[in-house]
Structures are given as C-alpha cells and as structure tokens.
C-alpha cells in the first residue's frame, strides 16, 4: 500500500490506487469474514469429532464400585436401665394356700377351673428353656427337653392327667417369660424364674421349689474370686433377668445383654465377654458344656427362690400347683428330681424349700 503511494504520481493512477485500495480493503474484510466462518467450520468439525470420541468411550465398561452396606449393629448387647422399682408385697415367697387336697390324678377336674380347661384341651402348655442344661434343655441325642424344671412340670401334668408327658413345650427366652403368661400363650412357666415382688405385680407364683443363688463364671485360671475383681470387664447376663438387674448394681463392670444364658456362653467362647453371671444352677449347666469355664467358688451373692409362674387370671391353678409341690416335697419326688439333675454339679440334696402361704389373690 505504501509502495503504491510512493510510486504513483498521476491522477489516473491515484484514482486507480484509491479504487484498488477500497477493493483491497473490501477483499480484506471479506477474507477476514471467510476466515472467521472457516474457523467456525473447523471448530464445529473438531467438536463433532470430540463428541464422537466421547460417545464411543462413554460405555467403557468401567463402573462405579458396588456399595458395601454398613454392617448392622449387633442386637445382642443391650443395656438400658430397666430395673424394676422396688415394690413391697410382703413376703414375696408367700403364695396361695391349696384348698384341701388335689383331686386324684386323671380324675375330672372341678368344673369352671383352669385345670378343667387344660384337661379338656388334652395337654399342658408350658414355657420352658431348651438350652439351660440341668434345668431345661433339649437333649440333642433324642430331641427331648429334660431337666429339673421339666420334672416339676411333669409332676403338674401327672396331677392333671395321670400322665407326666401330656405337655406341649414352648421354648421361650428369659425376657419372654412374663409376656407369654400375660398373653395366655402358655399355662405355666418353669424356667429358672426368681420370685420377687416386682414380678408379683404382673403374674402369680407357686411356692418356692428351689433356692438358687447368683454366682459368676469365668475362664479357667483367671484370678477372679468375686465380682469386685471384674472391674472394667465385660460381664454377660440375659436381658430381663434378675441376674441382669443385680449385675447393673456392681460399679465399674460393663454389662452385656443376651437373649439367654446360652447366648452368653457363645459370647464367652468367642471372647466377646470375660465372664457370665447367673444362678449357680444355670452356671453349672454352662460349665458342664465348656471345660475351660469355671464357676467362682465364693458363696452366692444373692438368693434366687425359683417359683412356677402362672397368669394372674387363674389363682385356682396356683393353689392346685402348690398342692402338687407340697406332695413332691414329702413323697421324695423332689429329691429324686434333684439327684438326677443337680446333685452331680451342686452336691447332695438340701432339704426342699419350705412352702410359705398366706397370700390372697
């Protein structure tokens, strides 16, 4: 452009130059516009390729990792303070006195009585444990449930039917004992059940048929002589048991709950708890299943009077059961039952607990 200006002298040339300049400018503008469209076209082509490449690669078969669900917290160790408030019911061991001697076994029961209902049904429905060795446990060899508690029920069955085996067993957990009686799904509960005033508010008890006491089971060789030595250790007891209530009163221990004492034994064998506390009868049954378990020799730190539980709606059945228990104490049946189940673990038979009456329904 500058060269044009320098070399051009004439008017025509100047005019031509001007024309050239404008046309050149126009061409220049057009070229710029074309270059712009060219760039746009190029850009869109590149974008097209990019889309194709991503489209081809989007399903590359690489997936996000399958989520692993968080493990559900185990439901076993529960420890809410559910200790029943102290209730005064007089002497908790006092039950309803029998009204005269029981009808002869197998004879028709008094009309309208609960025994009659049971007799008409043809079987006694009992809530029991199937895994408390010595008291009530299923014998894996023959599938039968047997033990000291079961022998008490057999006596009741015999008194009603004249046959000790007219019993339908309902296996229940420790915590199900009272609800099962309240909703009427069982007639009677024989499951190492401690008589106390709090429970008298919900159900009725027979007279005491055995006096157990709470002890503690630890691993063989551990230097534990009493509950005080277990500070900071995890100690297992079934939820809803008097053992659990008592366990909570010891400071510095970590209470761990389970459904049953056998559940505690599994936790103990897995090393998840350091000790198990419960009635000496039950602990003897646990120790019999594990040569590395040992019941601390110290005297029991509670008294656990066992009674048969019956619904509050039929006191006549409680009187009937008490009549049967009274007979067992005197005719040697009680001692026979003790000798066959508890003697080996707990020593020679003590005198059967005396019956206490005086309560009115």
């Amino acid at each position: 452009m500058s060269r044009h200006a320098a070399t051009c002298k004439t008017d025509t040339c100047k005019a031509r130059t001007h024309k050239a300049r404008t046309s050149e400018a126009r061409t220049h503008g057009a070229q710029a516009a074309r270059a712009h469209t060219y760039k746009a076209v190029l850009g869109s082509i590149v974008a097209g390729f990019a889309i194709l490449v991503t489209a081809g690669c989007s399903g590359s078969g690489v997936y996000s990792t399958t989520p692993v669900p968080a493990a559900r917290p185990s439901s076993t160790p529960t420890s809410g303070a559910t200790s029943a408030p102290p209730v005064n019911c007089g002497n908790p061991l006092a039950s309803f006195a029998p009204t005269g001697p029981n009808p002869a076994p197998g004879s028709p029961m008094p009309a309208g009585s609960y025994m009659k209902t049971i007799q008409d049904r043809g079987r006694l429905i009992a809530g029991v444990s199937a895994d408390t060795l010595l008291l009530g446990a299923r014998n894996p060899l023959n599938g039968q449930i047997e033990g000291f508690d079961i022998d008490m029920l057999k006596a009741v069955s015999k008194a009603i039917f004249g046959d000790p085996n007219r019993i339908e067993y309902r296996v229940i957990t420790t915590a199900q004992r009272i609800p099962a009686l309240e909703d009427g799904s069982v007639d009677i509960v024989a499951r190492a059940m401690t008589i106390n005033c709090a429970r008298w508010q919900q159900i009725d008890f027979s007279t005491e048929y055995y006096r157990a006491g709470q002890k503690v089971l630890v691993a063989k060789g551990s230097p534990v002589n009493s509950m005080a030595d277990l500070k900071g250790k995890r100690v297992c007891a079934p939820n809803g048991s008097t053992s659990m209530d008592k366990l909570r009163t010891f400071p510095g221990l970590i209470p761990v709950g389970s459904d049953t004492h056998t559940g505690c034994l599994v936790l103990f064998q897995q090393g998840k708890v350091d000790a198990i506390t419960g009635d000496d009868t039950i602990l003897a049954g646990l120790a019999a299943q594990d040569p590395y378990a040992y019941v601390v020799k110290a005297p029991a730190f509670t008294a656990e009077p066992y009674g048969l539980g019956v619904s509050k709606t039929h006191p006549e059945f409680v009187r009937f059961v008490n009549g049967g228990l009274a007979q067992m104490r005197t005719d040697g049946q009680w001692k026979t039952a003790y000798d066959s189940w508890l003697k080996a673990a707990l020593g020679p038979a003590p005198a059967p607990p005396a019956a206490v009456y005086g309560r009115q329904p």
Partner: protein
Amino acid sequence: MSQTTSASQATGVNPAAGSQTAGSQTTGAPTVAGRVVDARASLRRSLSGTPGRLRILALLAVAVSLIFGLGAYSAFGSAEAALSRAGANAAQLVRIQAIHTNLVRADADATNAFLVGGLEPADQRTSYTSSMQQASRLIAEAAKAQPADGPALGALNDSVLTYAGLIEQARATNRQALPVGAQYLRVASSGLRSSALPILDALVQANDARVRAEFDAARGASAVLIASGVLALLVLIGGMIWLSRRTHRYLNVPMAGATVAILVTLVVGVIVLASIGSTVSTVRDGSYAATLATAKARIAAFDAKSNESLTLIARGSGSAFEKAWVSSSKVVTEQSAAATKLSNDAASMGEKWKGYVNAHAQIRTKDDGGQWDLAVKQAIGSDPTSANATFNAFDVASGAALTSNSSAAADSLDAPRTWLPFISWLGLLVGIAAAVSAWWGVSLRLEEYR
C-alpha cells in the same frame, strides 16, 4: 542476523521510511513471523474467490463424510460393546443370585439337619457342603468377572467365612450333645441374614442397574449415527445445490454417489440398530425379566425352607420365623406367576410351590396342635408328600427354568454381536469412500479454474 539488523534499523527511525526498508528487507530474507504471515496470506488466497469456495466445500464434504464414517463405526461399535457388556453384567447378576441361592440352600440344609438331632443325615451334609463350595467358587469367579464388585464380594466372603465357622462349631458341639450347639446355629443363621444378605441385595441392585444402563446404551446407539448422517447429507446436498447454481451443471456425479452411499448406509444402519433395540427390549422384558423373577422366587423359596426349620427349632416361640416364612412364600408365589407369564419354561413353578405350601401347612397344623414331634418328623421326612420332597420338586423345576431363561437371554444378546463388528467397519469404509468421492467431485469443478 538479518532479523536483528532489520529490527535495530526499524527502531527509532522515521516510521514511514522504516516501514519501507523493513518491508523490502522482509521479502528478501523471510523471518518466522514473516513465514506465518506468508502462509496465512497464501491460505487466504487459496480460499478466496470461487476456487476458494470450492476448496472450502471440498474440505467440508470430506470432513462430514469422515465424521459420518466414524459415527457409523462408533454407533455400531458401541451397540456391539453395550450388548457384550449387558450380557456380561446379566451373567454376573445370575452368578450373584446363584451365590445367594447356594447360601440360603446351605442354611436350609444346616437348619433342617439340625432338627434331626446330633447325628445329621449324610446326604443333607453333602448338600450343605456342595452348596458352600459352589458359593465360595462363585464369589471368586464374580470378583474376577466384575472388579467393581470386588469390595462388596470381599465383605461377602468375610461373612460367609464367619457363617461356615459358626456352623462347624454348631455341628461339633451338637455332636457332643451340648445344648450350646443350637445357639451357635441360631447365631450363624441370623448372622448370615443380617450381614451377607444385605451385601447380596446391594450386588444384585448394582448389576441390575448396569444391565439396564447397557440396554439403554445399545438402544441409544443410533443417535450418533443419525446425527452424523443428517449432518453429512445436509452438507453434501447443500453443496450440490450450490455447485449446480455456480457451474450450471445439474448433477455432480461423484458427490451424488457419496450422498446416496451415505443415505443408504444411514437408512440401513438405523433399521439395523432399531432391530437391535427391539431385540434388547424383548430380552429385557422377556427372558431377562423371567431370569430375574425365577432367581428371586428361588431365593425366597430357600429362605422360606430355612424359616420352616427355624420355626420348629424355636419350638413354640418361632412365630417370627413363621411370619418370615409367610412373606417369603408370598414372594415365591408372585415371582413364580411373573416368571410363568414371561416364559413357558417357568410354567410349572407355581404348581410345584403349591405342593410344598400344602406340606408346610400340615407341619404347621401339627406343631400348632401341640404335636411338635410329629411336625418335626414330617419336616425331616422324605416321602413323596413330605415338605422336603415337594420342595425338592420346586427346586428342580425352578432351577431348570432359571437355566433355560438365562441362556435364552445370553443367546439373544449374543446373536447380533457376530455381524455387528463387520457392519461397523463397513460404515467406516463407506465414510472414507464418500469422502474420496466428494473430494473428487469438487476437484473436477476446481480443475476448470486452472
């Protein structure tokens, strides 16, 4: 050298004179900046005027033809890949459900054998062992087949190991006639349900989602083909109209050929992909759905069978297990009905399940009537009307239905995969050929300007 001199001369000199000298020197000895300017200038020159426009048209035509070729290649290729992955994910899903089935079957065997007592029947023991072996083999296979499932399968392996350990302890303890054995069995069973089964559910969900995503990908593959085809056709047809106006020739034969080739490939490709889409829909709503329903029915069935035994083991306080049985049985009935609607192979499942439900009802009547011993005898018996025998009939029928449905799904998904790679290369070739042809067609006109 010349660059530095020209630069030093240019600085601080009269701008008019400077520019004059610099300009004359640049033409003499080209600089980098000068070369770029030159290249740009020649590019501008080559793209200006009618020949320039022709060149742009040629470039555009080549580009869209190649894009179409790549689009076709990628559309068919991704349809093929999606089908292959859908098949692999469906196989993984079947594998996961086989793991699930084997675990619940093992649990059903273990719990039922437990009812018998200390001395468990040898054939139930064998069945338990083989179920556990298959489950652990399948876990390893599944981890290899889908790395994304690895962590979940690792966690599953953990809980299966724990389960097997607890069952062995239960057996050993039971063999010594100790009641704590029953507790180990309960802990094992409930642990399996609370830890392993949620992981299996998560795996099933993840793989089902993957199968469905790949089904969608296979059905959506034609979008790329259509977009690139329509773009190519628009440019080529637009180019031909422009050419015919410019050159007063009605038809540019090579470009028309390219257009027709692309059009034909597009139409055929869309039809092919649509047929694959309909195949996928048929599989998804047919054999794949039947496979899922059958597998769900089987899992619920074995779960129900375990719960039947657990109800009896709990002896009177097993109402929670019986409730679980009822809800599992409902799932079996529903899923069997769904599978029957979808596949003839599953037709007998519902009938067979009814047979077992009747046997179960008899067991419940006995147990609820206080005859626990008789109920157990029925539950562990193996005469033709017993729970075990009727359940076995369901197991056989549903197992056969599962096999035939899952292989039908796999076959249908595999069938198009034999010729899809061939078509996808063909699509690419058509694109390249169209590009060459279009270039040739435009260059014929370009020749006339030389």
